């Protein structure tokens, strides 16, 4: 009987052949802790009377409120640095970037590995077929103390993306379509196993990160992209790291990329996905381009392509926060940053930014934000009645110029807000 990718990885780490539904205890390759959870993590370790069993396998990233917004946060981050020094654990400090982006850049997430993160979007590591999954502080502390964790081997949903995206349609649109089809709890407890075929293999690592990142919005435990395309040249992918032909899936879904159009997730749930056309014209107060979903160099490139030679609408703020210091450096070097600045963008320190409503762009009551992030829950980015529309970097950039929700193709016709305002 064949195995899914999740079964393969967990079998490898459990040291025996395991199947969906079994409980397993597995060795973990990397335990990732974010600043906002670190205090609870330290407390749980103290309750266990334990220290990290393998300090080199514990990484703390200061990203959720970086730099510190108040004394509480500053104190917590000070403790992180001291604790990391004391125990010999890696700490990535203010400005290095968002945890998932940083672990990927640093090679701490590898094909076939297991990474536990104290952040739900740890599914992102699945972009390189690394079993990444999010857990709370207690589970994370137990994993740091023991080097292991316990898991129920997940059933798998096979999602096949075939063909190529039409010009102007992004991996984010494909990911939103996947969440729409699966629904917000359609993959709960499951592994979403992503197959890219008939041209879709050309999707970059960054695009795969966007897909894997959003699998958690369908409730998934992990989102594993079957290695192909550039992944095979970036990494040494072990021969065993492919699902078997006879693997058993709980459900199979096929999405034809060539048929997709730009999409947007409408408040207050991520699976509330509609075409951009259906909400076009809605006035926008803030546009946020960044996050672990869409803050990479290729995302900034996509935004810059739309923004080049244009200006952000007068009543709209455009906030760009690169996902990491590396992204910021590259965007500076290749001129992308200048294009963004000339269009009227303001740039934030690499990190999570206002994604969870803590700083750097919190929304006022009644405000509308188009964001390239991953959640549009009520109150997520600030006031309870502020609205968040999730979209691709291109749609976000176009909306910043138009001052209303828009696709880049609509720009020339929304003259009252955008291009013509300054182009007269």
């Amino acid at each position, binding site marked *: 009987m064949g195995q899914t990718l999740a079964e393969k990885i967990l079998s490898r780490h459990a040291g025996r052949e395991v199947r969906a539904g079994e409980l397993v205890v597995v060795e973990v390759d990397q335990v990732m802790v974010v600043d906002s959870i670190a205090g609870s993590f330290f407390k749980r370790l103290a309750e266990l009377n334990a220290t990290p069993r393998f300090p080199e396998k514990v990484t703390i990233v200061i990203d959720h409120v970086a730099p510190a917004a108040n004394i509480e946060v500053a104190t917590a981050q000070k403790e992180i640095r001291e604790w990391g020094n004391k125990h010999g654990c890696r700490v990535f400090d203010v400005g290095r970037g968002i945890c998932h982006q940083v672990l990927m850049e640093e090679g701490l997430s590898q094909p076939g590995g297991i990474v536990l993160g104290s952040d739900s979007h740890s599914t992102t590591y699945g972009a390189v077929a690394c079993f990444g999954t999010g857990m709370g502080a207690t589970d994370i502390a137990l994993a740091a103390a023991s080097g292991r964790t316990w898991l129920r081997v997940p059933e798998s949903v096979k999602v096949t993306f075939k063909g190529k995206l039409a010009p102007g349609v992004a991996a984010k649109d494909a990911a939103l379509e996947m969440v729409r089809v699966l629904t*917000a709890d359609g993959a709960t407890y499951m592994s979403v196993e992503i197959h890219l075929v008939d041209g879709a293999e050309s999707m970059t690592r960054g695009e795969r990160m966007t897909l894997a990142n959003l699998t958690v919005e369908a409730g998934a435990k992990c989102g594993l992209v079957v290695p192909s395309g550039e992944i095979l040249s970036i990494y040494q992918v072990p021969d065993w790291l492919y699902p078997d032909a006879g693997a058993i899936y709980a459900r199979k879904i096929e999405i034809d990329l060539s048929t997709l159009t730009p999409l947007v997730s409408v408040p207050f749930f991520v699976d509330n996905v509609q075409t951009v056309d259906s909400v076009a014209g809605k006035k926008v107060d803030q546009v946020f381009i960044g996050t672990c979903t869409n803050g990479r160099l290729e995302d900034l490139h996509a935004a810059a392509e739309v923004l080049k030679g244009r200006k952000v609408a007068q009543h709209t703020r455009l906030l760009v926060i690169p996902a990491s210091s590396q992204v910021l450096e590259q965007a500076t070097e290749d001129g992308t940053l200048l294009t963004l600045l000339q269009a009227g963008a303001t740039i934030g320190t690499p990190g999570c930014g206002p994604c969870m409503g803590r700083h750097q762009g919190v929304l006022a009551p009644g405000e509308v934000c188009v964001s390239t992030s991953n959640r549009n829950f009520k109150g997520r980015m600030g006031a309870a009645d502020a609205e968040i529309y999730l979209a691709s970097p291109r749609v976000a950039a176009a909306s910043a110029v138009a001052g209303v929700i828009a696709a880049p193709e609509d720009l020339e016709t929304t003259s009252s807000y955008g291009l013509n305002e300054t182009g007269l």
Partner: protein
Amino acid sequence: MPRVWKFGDSINTDDILPGKYAPFMVGEDKFQAFAFAHLRPEFAEGFKPGDLLVCGRNTGLGSSREYAPEALRKLGLKAIIAKSYARIFYRNLVNLGIMPFESAEVVGALNDGDEVELVFEQGLVKRGNQVFKLNPPPAFLLQALGEGSILEYYKRHARFPGEAGR
């Protein structure tokens, strides 16, 4: 008499504890005061230890923030009855010793404000002379919870429930 606080489907961790009120932001001793601050501002003040949370489908979706259920535990929550749970939230509940019961029928039968009694060991909810039976959580969870919590279990055995001796 404990009461029911009833919520609908898709109660997410941003509802339970908005990110801006994380202990990390407002202090370890204060964050529980902001439980359901957006959705039901009277909750934190009105909730009495032993009161019951009754929720719909996909309860606890969203962030991995364990401090969301921890805020509820600080207010005295010991059990939730829901139609279904999101994965990380479910693990967090177990890890914090909050019993996650799953029962669509009982959720359907209970109303907000009902005065109820939860008989933990027997998995029963009583409302007046009506008795509702709850499905017990999976055995492996009860094994851990039987020793207080998963942390206690690991501390005592240096292994996880169901794991062979090392």
